[in-house]
């Protein structure tokens, strides 16, 4: 209502509108009040506000254990803290609650750890907490934690004047063995000229004689010397590195995350003020296993007796080019941690070349460890948090694998375990490409290791996953076939492998595996097409796969021909999309070429492989169907794959049903037929597609179709 009135209150000066205006302002005032009231009410019901109220009101001595109310409230505060950060008031309440030890020391640490400010930290709260430090019986480790917290959020404290006022009070803590380094850092940040006093200098010097020249003392003293050189006579080493140790604070990452989320209005340096950049910070994180070790030379040298006898070695770190690598090939020393090789293509080249068993094993231990810890053993659900890092890690792994053109056994072992717990969406492209890299799996194990988990994922996932998996399986098959064609071409066909090669696979074993894979994909594809309503995108990926399958003999020298199942053949044949039909025709053509060439070899050599009659029968059947259907207009002829009862067909009232899928009437080609008809008989008013079927126009029509780029059709049934 108010809004409406507001709109009707232009800056018109006529009196009626003035009245209007006042009315509107009054009513808008009222609406503001209502809104305010509403807001308060909402706030009062807001569980977070209630939780804060709980912590500000809770009585001293309330038990912690078994106290569900406390637990729930704290969990709520923690959740808000880690997602949005805490408001200044919330910080005050929680800090007061923790430091006053109202519920004992137990919740203290937990509360301190979640004190992540959204904007600023009220100075008042910090001062009160410092005072509590002297009053309560706070455990020493918690005291340290508190000071670390103050150091972390120092820049976010809204003012420092009152803190400086209690400088002396804070100073009194330097005598505490554990607090000393941190207190010195805090004092360093608070010191003004007026805080430098003789007795303080004396105290620090006294501490120094007791502790030795500790850097934190030296730093504070050097600052004192800057302010009052007459009081500090000590000589400060000039080559003193600047900075206190960065006390790896537990809040840093949470703070950064919260600020990122809040768009970081408060510009503050996320690193501690005046500290050294911390090299080890990332090492302290929970998920540190994804970090590649630094490429460094060996620390663990062999016993000197070995060394004297051996020649000079060159650590891999010192090599930078391929020429250097080649020159020093005979005396290269592997790095201390093999995991570091993953980042360097030069090192990978060397590794691939030497085939050192132990080195490979070391690399695999590290890699397997990293993958397992990150994706399988992570108990705390850190997956989403570190996905960026995980992504980079997997990309690096993938590029190494592509470089070596083979998979690491540990990543393979990891995948088999991971597939059974994978949700199909986490890092999908990476996981699928890792999967496509896995080497041939023996047919006895392929079902359990690959097919069962993949089948579950396939049937429960989206269309895009289905397409992705099809592509992945196609790549896998391509790699297997390529491997075969490279390494087995020159051999006799069915020999067992020499005993000194470690992979125990015969040609027939390999064939079995490939056959299993192709059949598996056939099953997936048939059901997948049904589930997705013969989606043309999925169909396209499936046809990609069969383009690989139909050429196994000629392109890759593998004597194996497997035909697609009807569940793939028919959806492709009846697809409303001409490209799919054409690709099917191309695939049938390639099958034909492969089969005939196999047949002719069979006649020439005795060694050639035997293709079962069943395969020929299937092939012939498909060719008959496709030719009858598209070219001969003999759909539903007895003996064809698709059969319907005569009376059903008559009932359907489709005229000339036998011709409804020929190249003229097929939904995929109808538009071409219409177009052709127009061009052929431009003067005709009524369109009669059947007239294309007469022998002359029919051959023109085919020529026209083939000229549109439908080479598959053309190759299967060459033009007249």
């Amino acid at each position, binding site marked *: 209502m108010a809004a409406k009135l507001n709109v009707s209150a232009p800056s018109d000066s006529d009196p009626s509108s003035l009245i209007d205006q006042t009315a509107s302002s009054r009513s808008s005032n009222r609406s503001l009040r209502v809104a305010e009231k509403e807001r308060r009410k909402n706030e009062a019901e807001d569980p977070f506000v209630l939780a804060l109220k709980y912590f500000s009101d809770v009585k001293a001595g309330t038990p912690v254990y078994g106290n569900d109310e406390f637990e729930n409230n704290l969990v709520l505060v923690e959740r808000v803290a880690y997602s949005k950060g805490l408001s200044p008031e919330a910080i005050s309440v929680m800090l007061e609650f923790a430091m006053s030890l109202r519920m004992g020391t137990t919740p203290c640490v937990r509360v301190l750890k979640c004190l992540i400010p959204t904007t600023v930290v009220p100075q008042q709260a910090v001062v009160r907490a410092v005072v509590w430090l002297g009053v309560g019986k706070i455990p020493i480790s918690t005291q340290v934690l508190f000071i670390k917290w103050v150091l972390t959020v120092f820049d976010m404290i809204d003012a420092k004047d009152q803190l400086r006022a209690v400088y002396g009070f804070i100073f009194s803590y330097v005598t505490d063995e554990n607090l000393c380094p941190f207190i010195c850092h805090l004092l360093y940040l608070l010191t003004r000229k007026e805080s430098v006093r003789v007795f303080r200098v004396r105290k620090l010097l006294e501490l120094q004689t007791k502790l030795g020249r500790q850097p934190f003392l030296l730093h504070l003293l050097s600052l004192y010397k800057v302010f009052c050189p007459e009081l500090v006579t000590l000589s400060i080493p000039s080559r003193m*590195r600047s900075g206190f140790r960065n006390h790896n604070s537990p809040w840093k990452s949470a703070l950064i995350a919260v600020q990122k989320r809040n768009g970081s209005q408060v510009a503050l340096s996320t690193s501690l003020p005046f500290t050294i950049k911390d090299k080890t910070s990332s090492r302290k994180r929970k998920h540190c296993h994804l970090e590649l070790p630094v490429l460094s030379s060996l620390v*663990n040298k062999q016993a000197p007796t070995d060394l004297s006898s051996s020649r000079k070695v060159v650590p891999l770190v010192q090599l930078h080019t391929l020429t250097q690598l080649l020159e020093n090939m005979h005396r290269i020393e592997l790095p*201390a941690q093999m995991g570091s090789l993953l980042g360097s293509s030069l090192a990978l080249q060397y590794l691939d070349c030497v085939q050192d068993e*132990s080195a490979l*094993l070391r690399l695999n231990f*590290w890699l397997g460890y990293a993958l397992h810890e990150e994706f399988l053993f992570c108990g705390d659900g850190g997956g989403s948090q570190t996905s960026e890092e995980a992504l980079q890690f997997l990309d690096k792994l993938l590029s190494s694998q592509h470089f070596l053109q*083979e998979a690491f056994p540990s990543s393979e072992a990891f995948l088999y375990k991971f597939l059974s717990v994978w949700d199909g969406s986490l890092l999908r492209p990476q996981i699928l490409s890792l999967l496509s890299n896995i*080497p041939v799996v023996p047919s006895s194990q392929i079902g359990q290791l690959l097919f069962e988990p993949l089948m579950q994922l396939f049937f429960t996932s989206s269309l895009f996953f289905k397409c992705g998996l099809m592509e992945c399986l196609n790549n896998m098959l391509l790699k297997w076939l390529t491997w075969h064609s490279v*390494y087995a071409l020159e051999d006799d066909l069915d020999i067992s492998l020499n005993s000194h090669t470690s992979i*125990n696979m015969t040609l027939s074993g390999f064939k079995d595996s490939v056959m299993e894979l192709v059949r598996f994909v056939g099953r997936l594809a048939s059901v997948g097409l049904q589930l997705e309503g013969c989606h043309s995108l999925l169909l396209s990926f499936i046809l990609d796969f069969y383009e690989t399958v139909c050429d196994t003999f000629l392109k890759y020298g593998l004597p194996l021909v497997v035909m697609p199942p009807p569940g793939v053949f028919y959806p492709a044949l009846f697809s409303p999309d001409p490209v799919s039909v054409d690709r099917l025709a191309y695939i049938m053509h390639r099958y034909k070429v492969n089969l005939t060439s196999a047949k002719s070899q069979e006649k020439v050599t005795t060694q050639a492989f035997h293709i079962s009659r069943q395969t020929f029968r299937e092939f012939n059947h498909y060719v008959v169907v496709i030719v009858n259907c598209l070219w001969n207009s003999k759909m539903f002829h007895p003996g064809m794959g698709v059969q319907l009862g005569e009376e059903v067909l008559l009932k359907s009232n489709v005229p000339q049903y036998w011709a409804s899928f020929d190249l003229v009437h097929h939904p995929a080609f109808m538009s071409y037929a219409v177009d052709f008809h127009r061009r052929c008989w431009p003067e005709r008013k009524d369109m009669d597609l059947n007239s294309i079927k007469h022998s002359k126009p029919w051959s023109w029509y085919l020529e026209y179709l083939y000229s549109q780029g439908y080479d598959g059709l053309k190759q299967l049934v060459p033009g007249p």
Partner: protein
Amino acid sequence: MERPHNSVVRTPINSVVVQRRSKNKSYRQSYRSCLGAASRLGLTPALTARRLNSSRRAPKSHNITEKVNPEHLALLMKMEWKLSYVTPLYQFKHTQLKSYSRQLSAFIAAEKQQGLAVEVEGSQSAFRVSFSVVHGMMATEDDAETVLIQINSKPLFAGQDEPQRSVWSGWLTCINGNSDYLHSLPTDFICLPLFGSSGPEVLTSLVKSWFQQMFDCCFGPLEISHTSLQWLVALWTNCHTESSIQHLKMIWTLPVVPPLQITYTVNPQDAWELWSSVRKDPQEQSKGGDAVEEGGNIDIEEVTRFMQGLKSHFYRHFRLDLSAGSLKQVSTALGSAKYNGRVKISNSRYMITTLTLLTECALLKMPV
């Protein structure tokens, strides 16, 4: 017992010869597969065939007090240890322990120094590390000998003559490790898969990173799973007649909101009687198993039955079915173990049994 079958002929371990690609070998060696490579990398880990043993020897009381240095033994029993698993150590030599002690001391000093303004002049390093072999802490010939690491230090504010005190200790061990796995490793690897540490986290992580750089190994946290804890309940209860367990205390958590934690303490005699009642007839057992000696083997079924008994007793009294929850902690007079991988072994006689189980858990975590 499910051992990963490893029928494939193993490559001779020392055949680390450089093999060039040659075309006349079909399917050449470069083609690494974790399945085909069963011979190379030892196991067929991909098949996840490695499982916890489903049957194990009843704990014999090993009198290791005679074999093991009493000082070491006292230390091992004094602390609660935080467990980790470690991948095999490359080029670790039991003969080099002295030099390792020196190197680790230097490493810790260097790391502590990092980021500090000045070197503490002339001070001998604040931390003194000593490596030692715990002789006799092994069960079979294949097990590598246990290594104990101790770090001593002077407190920051201590006077000149105050003695150094122990600030951190840890050990690496392998008791009854799966011999197939151990044999499959090349000789330049030493497998000490179980790592226990006790002391400040900072030192633990320093020690770990030193090991990582020296021996190219990885450390990961080792939890003691629900099943392993159940095994410990049974194994310890089984010892009751020989040395009293005094109490059997279990902590369960139930997945309700808010989480419910249940402490369930059983009278030792009651526990023992329940355990005896679920044990299989020794005769029946001797039919299946070989060599039955003092109690023979304990099967997982017996353990399950025992736990079932405990659970149904609890249900009768409190109408709460513990099978919905999980076991988080077990303790008896013989020791205690927690889900988060903290363990304390209070009785030296059953140390070997407990460590055997834990070694098995650690080996299960091996990535390859």
